[in-house]
């Protein structure tokens, strides 16, 4: 330690503090500006194409007639199916791993693998989906095959989020329940899950948002480029928002880039609605916890 530090310790610390604060503000502003520029660009480009007709028309080779109906319906279907498949599976796995499974080598092995799976590139899930669901199980290029592939993709995320949420429930709650003679099942269903619900929900919604925006696995399993009908069941062929947007954006005509921008706005609104629903549900769920 040299003497100068002892002389003016407050000064130096305050300077560091100001410097760090400045950095933090600068970086936040930077990312915000990028976001605003991106969203602003998309809104300016796409706004003129945004109308009720855009939502209720099928794709077309003429930009002014092109609509997003089949892609929107495809994405709705996909999200519904993914939700039904991945949420029960994910939460059940998390409960088993946290509450029932004895901690040991096997459990650690599973844990590491799930964490690894969460980091696997999405195209790999597309290849698995193509080999297993499309070809082996003969699901063809259907919504169900797409939903199963997407579910595989987001399951690790849901499991990890749900496990964290369950682990965060204080041990006393469980012990209290056991002391009163509750079984493990009763403890989990009446106490642990309600307490963990907000955290689980956040994980689920984040995972669903990711599934909504993913393109690579869907292209891999062969979701289609031109679809001019609304799927009527889980075995129907389909297209989805990101694929439709990709198709428009890659067309040479400039008008189609504006149509693509309009598609992006729809996708963003969809995401925003999903996330707001999450915030609201989370708020409601956390209000109900009373110990």
């Amino acid at each position, binding site marked *: 330690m040299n003497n100068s530090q002892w002389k003016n310790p407050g000064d130096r610390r305050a300077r560091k503090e100001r410097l760090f604060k400045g950095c933090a503000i600068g970086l936040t502003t930077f990312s915000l500006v990028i976001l605003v520029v991106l969203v602003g660009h998309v809104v300016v480009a796409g706004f003129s194409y945004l109308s009720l007709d855009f939502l209720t028309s*099928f794709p077309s080779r003429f930009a002014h007639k092109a609509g997003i109906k089949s892609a929107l319906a495809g994405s709705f279907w996909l999200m519904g199916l993914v939700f039904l498949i991945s949420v029960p599976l994910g939460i059940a796995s998390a409960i088993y791993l946290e509450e029932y499974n004895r901690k040991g080598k096997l459990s650690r092995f599973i844990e590491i693998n799930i964490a690894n799976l969460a980091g696997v590139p999405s195209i790999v899930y597309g290849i698995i989906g193509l080999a297993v669901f499309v070809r082996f199980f003969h699901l063809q290029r259907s919504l169900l095959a797409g939903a199963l592939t997407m579910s595989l993709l987001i399951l690790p995320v849901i499991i990890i989020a749900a496990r964290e949420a369950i682990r965060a429930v204080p041990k006393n709650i469980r012990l209290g329940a056991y002391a009163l003679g509750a079984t493990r099942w009763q403890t989990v269903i009446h106490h642990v899950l309600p307490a963990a619900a907000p955290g689980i929900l956040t994980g689920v919604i984040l995972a669903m948002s990711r599934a909504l925006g993913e393109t690579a696995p869907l292209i891999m399993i062969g979701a289609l480029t031109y679809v001019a009908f609304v799927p009527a069941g889980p075995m129907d062929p389909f297209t989805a928002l990101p694929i439709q947007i990709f198709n428009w954006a890659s067309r*040479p005509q400039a008008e189609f880039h504006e149509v693509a921008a309009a598609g992006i706005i729809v996708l963003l609104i969809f995401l925003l609605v999903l996330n707001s629903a999450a915030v609201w549900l989370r708020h409601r769920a956390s209000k109900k916890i009373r110990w």
Partner: protein
Amino acid sequence: MKRLFITGLSLAGFLILTACGNSANNKSISSLTGTVKVDGSSTVFPITEAVAEEFGKIYPKVRVTVGISGTGGGFKKYVIGETDINDASRPIKGSEIKKATENGIEFIELPIAFDGLSVVVNRANNWVDQLTVAELNLIWKAGSHVQQWSDIRPEWPSKPIHLFGPGTDSGTFDYFTEAINGKAQSCRSDFSKSEDDNVLVQGIAGDRYALGFFGFAYYQENTDKLKVVPIDGGKGPVAPSVTTINDGSYQPLSRPIFIYVKPESAKREEVRTFVNFYLDHAPELVGEVGYVALPTEAYDHDRLRFKDVKTGSLFSGKETIGLKIEDILKAG
């Protein structure tokens, strides 16, 4: 938690219901139902898309799907029976016929338009006025040493040449390499590839030192962004245009493009109706999206071949350059 779960379930249910409800407001003109699955070449895609869109106005209940996987990628699906129709920008290959036969899958080969494979450069490129076939070969042959424009002609700029071309699953790639390098798929590999021609257009339009090739329609759509290079096949430089493609003077890069229909699928009324609609409306739609329509006689032959379920290929592995398409069809 229970209520939460129910909320979630009903949310999912609502999503599904709204998705279903959308189909109610279709106008019904013909009550024909069914599905027609098409996949394959991105070169042929604009034609099939246009046909599918027009078809949907009259037969709204027939569900036509069109994918883009490249001619080869499309045939991979076709030969295992996953699709009804394959868009192809080159004739089916011997190896693909073999695979199809192994799986008991046949095909009716129907030429539907002419394409003049177009070699293009950036709009700001002011030095290239024409290229000979020999120069194209010099640029594109396997192991080519051309790295700069000046490697082609010394008076051209000493700037690196950026090459763009369709991916190896593409029929356009097969045709180009066969016509220019003498053997399909024999080509240098250090160029930017995409199965989607639009990506190539964007790449070349944004790069002054770029050179690439793709189907005529994609040039037609982008004449304001790209400059087409006249090709000298031995009889002086010729630029691709409706006239030069039609009269056969744009050589050796003019070629017919096809759809391949599975006879098994053609037994279904919706597929049969779609293919006949395709052949009836091809002459007008082919021109609209930027290709060159075949002579009327050729479409008549197509209709007959389709009606009589004539399977097998007249074009596969044969030298058809310089032959009139209606004569080839008549001979078959």
